[in-house]
């Protein structure tokens, strides 16, 4: 049948290829920010609706008439028109109406040239305002991330649900509640200044960090969506770091940590989706541009005396990125960074990672000892990586029997397919090595 052949044909080049990657997603984030600036943060939902409607209009017309010369300007113009219609209709805008109309008309008056009188800098200000509003301490942390993903990054509730392993309905509820709180608490749409700004900035960084980690950790969600999370977290953090209010050592440190870890994201899996350990990864596939940008931010992060956990984590990531191969990794440096990190953040995961560095520097016995010290005191007993790490140490000591036992335990504790297949492979290797002895 001819139509079957048709479906596999590559879409024709030309105007479609002009639709740059993520154009809609990024434009949506910008437009929501700008419109929120106009309508007020209490009408956030309205801004989101107008933007969605503009995107839908694009869907309805572009396929037939072609992609406009400047798609971003087209979307802006359409959103502007829709917003004007709405304001003229809605009574609630009556008091502010003339002001708003003047503003919107000025915002994109030269529509044919596709230029927006709003400068990029102003748009970025609006996006930062929205970022600070979404990450307000009075909004629950999980709602902060959901709201940021929805409004700033253009994720659908379904995609957010996939990323956080929850239902779409739960995410929708979270979003509604967050918007309600913004209204009820009169959360301001502004970039905070003065004493408050430092605390508020920390809140934003925490949310961005959470966003990145959610994408980076391999334990949940669909891999494609997770990669997007990392990318968006990086984009927003870089935006923040480029702004005067965000041009601070710890912001640069967070950006560095994201770039330096993000650069290695793709290399963590082989073509079949199996997890590759650091020593197995093809270092030539690490993203050099991202590493360079990470190193740039790391250098900027060193200004001043601030030493945050972001600094230390970025430093550790930099050690890995700087090593030509696994053998030349600077483990003593990494261990010293972990020693400092554990002073700030004594989470079990940090402690376990520190044990790995410990084993690299002082041998597997020291590693086992370090793990034994922490395994009972914290919630590590049911953490599969604890056993995976112990297995690694035991097999370095050639005790394949003990290693195999740890791996079996680890296998019982993870449900993730990619993790399971890695552990099974290591278990087979251990059993084979045990038999040879």
């Amino acid at each position: 049948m001819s139509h079957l052949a048709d479906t596999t044909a590559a879409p024709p080049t030309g105007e479609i290829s002009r639709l740059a990657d993520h154009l809609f997603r990024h434009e949506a984030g910008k437009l929501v920010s700008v419109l929120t600036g106009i309508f007020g943060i209490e009408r956030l939902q309205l801004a989101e609706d107008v933007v969605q409607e503009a995107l839908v209009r694009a869907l309805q017309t572009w396929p037939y008439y072609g992609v406009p010369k400047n798609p971003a300007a087209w979307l802006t113009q359409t959103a502007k028109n829709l917003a004007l219609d709405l304001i003229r209709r809605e009574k609630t805008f009556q008091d502010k109406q003339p002001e708003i109309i003047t503003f919107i008309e000025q915002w994109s008056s030269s529509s044919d040239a596709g230029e927006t009188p709003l400068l990029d800098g102003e748009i970025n200000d609006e996006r930062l305002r929205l970022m600070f509003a979404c990450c307000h301490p009075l909004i629950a942390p999980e709602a902060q991330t959901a709201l940021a993903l929805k409004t700033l990054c253009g994720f659908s509730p379904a995609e957010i649900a996939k990323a956080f392993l929850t239902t779409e309905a739960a995410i929708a509820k979270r979003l509604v509640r967050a918007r309600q709180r913004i209204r009820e608490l009169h959360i301001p749409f502004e970039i905070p200044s003065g004493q408050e700004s430092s605390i508020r900035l920390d809140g934003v960084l925490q949310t961005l960090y959470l966003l990145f980690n959610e994408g980076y950790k391999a334990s949940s969600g669909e891999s494609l969506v997770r990669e997007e999370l990392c990318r968006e977290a990086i984009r927003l953090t870089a935006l923040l770091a480029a702004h005067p209010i965000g041009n601070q050592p710890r912001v640069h440190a967070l950006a560095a940590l994201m770039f330096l870890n993000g650069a290695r994201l793709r290399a963590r899996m082989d073509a079949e989706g199996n997890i590759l350990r650091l020593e197995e990864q093809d270092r030539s596939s690490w993203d050099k541009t991202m590493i360079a940008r990470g190193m740039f931010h790391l250098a900027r992060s060193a200004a001043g005396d601030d030493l945050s956990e972001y600094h230390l984590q970025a430093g550790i990531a930099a050690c890995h990125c700087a090593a030509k191969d696994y053998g030349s990794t600077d483990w003593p440096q990494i261990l010293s960074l972990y020693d400092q990190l554990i002073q700030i953040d004594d989470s079990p995961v940090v402690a376990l990672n520190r044990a790995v560095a410990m084993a690299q520097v002082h041998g597997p016995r020291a590693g086992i000892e370090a793990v034994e010290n922490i395994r009972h005191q914290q919630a590590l007993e049911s953490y599969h990586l604890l056993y995976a790490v112990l297995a690694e140490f035991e097999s370095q000591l050639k005790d394949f029997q003990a290693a195999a036992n740890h791996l079996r335990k680890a296998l019982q504790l993870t449900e993730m397919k990619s993790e399971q297949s890695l552990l099974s492979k290591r278990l087979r290797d251990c059993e084979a090595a045990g038999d040879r002895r």
Partner: protein
Amino acid sequence: MSTPTTKSDYLLLFRGNDWDKDLSPEQLQRVVSDWAAWFERLTQQGKAVGGHPLRAEGKLVSGRKGRAVADGPFAESKEAIGGYFHLQVADENEAVAIAQQCPGLEYGAVVEVRPVAEMCTVRARALEASSRAEQLAGAA
């Protein structure tokens, strides 16, 4: 597949104009470019000879001498027609096969495939009726 010498006209009517409301910008962008690629491909192959989106608003004219002019929308959003393709293809099977490639299907859009009639059905019925009348008259 044999090469048919004659082509028939079909309309693909895209029904539903709210299936896109919950898509993320990313998904919308994908649908836009897939849809445009689809339309371009069909046009290049000479299978699509036209197509347009339809605005949701409009007027509904009814009543004697068209006295009643109402503002649209005219149908429930699930039923509303959002656009159409005019196809010239071998047969209904091919038209259906093309409809099955619609990028909106995945998200709940519905495609109606309608053959273009050679003659308006009302006129056909009128002609049929009058020829029957003639036959009856002849028989009498």
